[in-house]
């Protein structure tokens, strides 16, 4: 009964979505304010209906209702409750429901925080989001229904994939989807602007906070995925350039470019058409990512052939969304205009270069991800594109982008002078070069890549320091604290996010340059030393978990004879699927991680063991978190709150800037 209610709620949600996607847009076109006012209640109603469906599926999982096919396929009676709930998004159908649920959350948010928007704009935005929702709901109801019954009911479920039975997996997909789907708001803003034919600085100011929030979620989501791979897969890697990862990374690159391009549109009225195109691109890649990962096409392109309806729907949907918006773009973008002119050597010019580089990087990832799929689909042979490809392409593309990241904030809008910039930055440059050359020697060994990485990281931090100092010198206020407080929060946000990138680069550089890995056979009582740490293996013991049995190893770690920690890596066998899983033991630290994972049992209680010493690896995720924090700080800036509080749509940017500096 409960699953049927969920199913029925989805059908109703589809009806509401159809209304929301048609009437308000039509109303905006003919100027009928009654039709436009349908958008808000429709969005909220749709949210309630999808929430109901979501809860129904959650209930089916909690109540172990194995007469629901999806529940039987992804959970088991012995699976703990929190993983049963997380199993809602453990596979294809439920992920789509989560997607729609999150879309409806964003819709409700838009309906609440858009009171300052012109009515036609709001109607169009919610209308476009409604149309996206129609696509997903149709998909679920026709070919991928999470509430489908299994008759007769299964005696017990097939269990959730053990890899997913992890706290990280509980939060990672919702985070990622908040990011993916969040770009639908930027997308809807862009489409609404194209439909309305007006695109000004105010438009950019409205879409900026939405885009930034989505980007923050996506940043955290991608970082969590990477962290999960690091500790759950048991071989110590944090990024494999695997198609699943690339699928989440591509929208991130597009979103990062979009944030920077929107800044120009907001402050200078430039890059208008480009911002719109990036918004379309970011959302299209989010859709592509969702489907790539969740349709099974990556496991085998022939998954499409075994379930042609599903594959066909996805292709048609992608074609309609991407093709449709590009056609609209080609038709309406000339009206939107390119925006104001600027000199090549200016902040706009540098942001443009940054955008081109990010998009080029995005293109190379797209090529490496999709090309093997195309070849395979056309039966032209099976190939794979190895991680070295991405590494070789990424470093040269990102190096100039990061170099510009240091200069950009110091450059003036419109036109700036290179010699003057060089004078202002000479100390930052000298300090970066000297430190980057010298530091690796003190750390042990010098390689060009380590130096390059450190150079870029130090460059970001030193240029940020120069920038901050100059701005403080020009700020009003008597005390240093007062002047610090006078800086707008969006500025602090930018600074923080950029420093996050620096931390990230330090992490990557140090891990790539200095990590030590050793695979070896260890007898009980034997010791091994890596990176100055001595690991003593004290054998394994059996124990029984809720739905698995495990061998747990004990390792005593010492450094120079002092006890550091005791580590307990595990080898688990999940009984339902008879699947073996490695649970690595990690001892995290500010400057290093120690990582131990069990390989296979050998004779006499000995095991093959994998030991790692990973310097600064946690800085990788720390850097990502700080980037996201920077984004949140930027969104909390006064100028956006002002826009929400007063219903003033068209405060010229200059007035607002003046206000900020005064306050």
């Amino acid at each position, binding site marked *: 009964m409960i699953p049927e209610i969920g199913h029925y709620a989805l059908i109703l949600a589809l009806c509401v979505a159809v209304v929301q996607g048609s009437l308000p847009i039509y109303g905006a076109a003919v100027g009928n304010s009654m039709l436009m006012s349908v958008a808000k209640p429709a969005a909220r109603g749709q949210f309630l209906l999808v929430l109901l469906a979501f809860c129904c599926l959650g209930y089916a999982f909690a109540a172990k209702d194995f007469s629901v*096919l999806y529940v*039987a*396929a992804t959970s088991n009676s012995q699976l703990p409750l929190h993983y049963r709930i997380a199993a809602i998004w453990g*596979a*294809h159908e439920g992920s789509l429901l989560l997607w729609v649920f999150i879309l409806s959350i964003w819709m409700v948010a838009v309906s609440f925080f858009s009171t300052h928007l012109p009515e036609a704009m709001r109607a169009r935005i919610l209308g476009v989001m409604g149309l996206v929702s129609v696509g997903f709901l149709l998909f679920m109801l026709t070919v991928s229904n999470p509430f489908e019954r299994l008759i007769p009911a299964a005696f017990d479920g*097939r269990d959730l*994939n053990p890899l*997913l039975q992890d706290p990280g*997996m509980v939060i990672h997909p919702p985070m990622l989807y908040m990011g993916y789907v969040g770009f639908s708001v930027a997308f809807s803003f862009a489409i609404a602007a194209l439909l309305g034919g007006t695109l000004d600085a105010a438009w950019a100011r409205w879409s900026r906070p939405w885009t930034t929030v989505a980007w923050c979620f996506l940043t955290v989501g991608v970082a969590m*995925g990477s962290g*999960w791979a690091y500790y759950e897969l*048991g*071989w110590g890697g944090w990024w494999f350039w*695997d198609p*699943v990862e690339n699928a989440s990374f591509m929208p991130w690159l597009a979103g990062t470019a979009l944030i920077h391009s929107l800044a120009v549109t907001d402050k200078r009225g430039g890059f208008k058409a480009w911002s719109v195109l990036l918004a379309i691109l970011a959302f299209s890649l989010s859709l592509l990512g969702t489907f790539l*990962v969740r*349709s*099974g096409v*990556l*496991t*085998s392109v*022939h998954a499409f052939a075994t379930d042609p309806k599903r594959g066909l729907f996805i292709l048609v949907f992608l074609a309609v969304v991407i093709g449709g918006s590009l056609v609209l773009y080609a038709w309406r973008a000339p009206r939107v205009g390119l925006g104001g*002119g600027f000199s*090549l050597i200016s902040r706009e010019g540098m942001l*443009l*270069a940054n955008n*081109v*580089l990010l998009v*080029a990087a995005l*293109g*190379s990832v797209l*090529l*490496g991800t999709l*090309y093997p799929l195309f070849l395979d689909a056309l039966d032209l*042979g099976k*190939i*794979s*594109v*190895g991680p*070295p*490809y991405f590494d*070789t*392409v990424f470093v*040269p*593309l990102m190096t100039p982008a990061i170099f510009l990241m240091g200069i950009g904030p110091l450059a003036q809008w419109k036109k700036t002078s290179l010699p003057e910039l060089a004078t202002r930055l000479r100390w930052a440059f000298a300090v970066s070069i000297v430190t980057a050359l010298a530091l690796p020697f003190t750390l042990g060994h010098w390689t060009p890549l380590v130096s390059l990485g450190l150079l870029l990281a130090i460059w970001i931090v030193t240029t940020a320091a120069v920038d901050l100092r100059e701005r403080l010198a020009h700020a009003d206020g008597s005390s240093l604290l007062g002047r610090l407080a006078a800086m707008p929060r969006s500025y602090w946000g930018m600074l923080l996010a950029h420093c996050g990138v620096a931390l990230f680069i330090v992490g990557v550089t140090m891990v790539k340059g200095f990590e030590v890995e050793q*695979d*070896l*056979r260890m007898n009980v009582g034997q010791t091994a030393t890596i990176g100055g740490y001595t690991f003593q293996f004290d054998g394994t013991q059996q124990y029984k978990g809720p739905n698995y049995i495990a061998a747990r190893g004990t390792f005593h770690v010492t450094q120079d004879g002092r006890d550091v920690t005791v580590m307990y890596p595990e080898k688990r066998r999940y009984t339902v*699927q*008879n*699947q*073996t899983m*490695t649970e690595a033991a990690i001892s995290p630290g500010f400057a290093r991680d120690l990582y131990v994972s069990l*390989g*296979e049992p*050998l004779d006499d209680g*000995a*095991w*093959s063991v*994998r030991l790692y010493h990973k310097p600064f690896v946690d800085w990788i995720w720390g850097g990502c978190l700080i980037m996201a924090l920077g984004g949140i700080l930027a969104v909390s800036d006064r100028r956006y709150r002002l826009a929400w509080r007063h219903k003033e749509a068209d405060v010229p940017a200059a007035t607002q800037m003046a206000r900020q500096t005064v306050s």
Partner: protein
Amino acid sequence: MKPRQKRFVLIGLGLVALAVAAMLVLNAFQSNLVFFFTPTQVANAEVPKGRGFRIGGMVEAGSLTREGDGLTVHFVVTDLAKRVPVTFKGILPDLFKEGKGVVAQGQLGADGTFLASEVLAKHDENYMPPEAAAALAKAKAAGAQSSRTLVVNPREEPR
């Protein structure tokens, strides 16, 4: 500079950047493509010499042996038509099992042994890696390897 000239410079720079990026990409692409071959193709000497590639198929039951160091393993990959002996030093992934699908990357040694640098098993228990499944299908193995174990729908790779 006049606006028109400026636009040309902009477009020109954009094109140069694109060309450089394309060159980098294609260059790296060329040297990092890893081709996939079946044991039959290996046996027929269709594989490139001195370049890494991937093979896939089934780990032959009872073929796994381990050397005294606990790390070096030998096993046979088969598509049920031809067999290729494989040597690998390292820790095998959790999903590696005799009688199950496997994909390995490495080079062919002089004696016809495949020296694997990496053994991949990024698939779940019931699911063959697509390359391995394709290799089996290609060798026209009888229906013994059908995916009857797939109860509902093939679970996609997590993440």
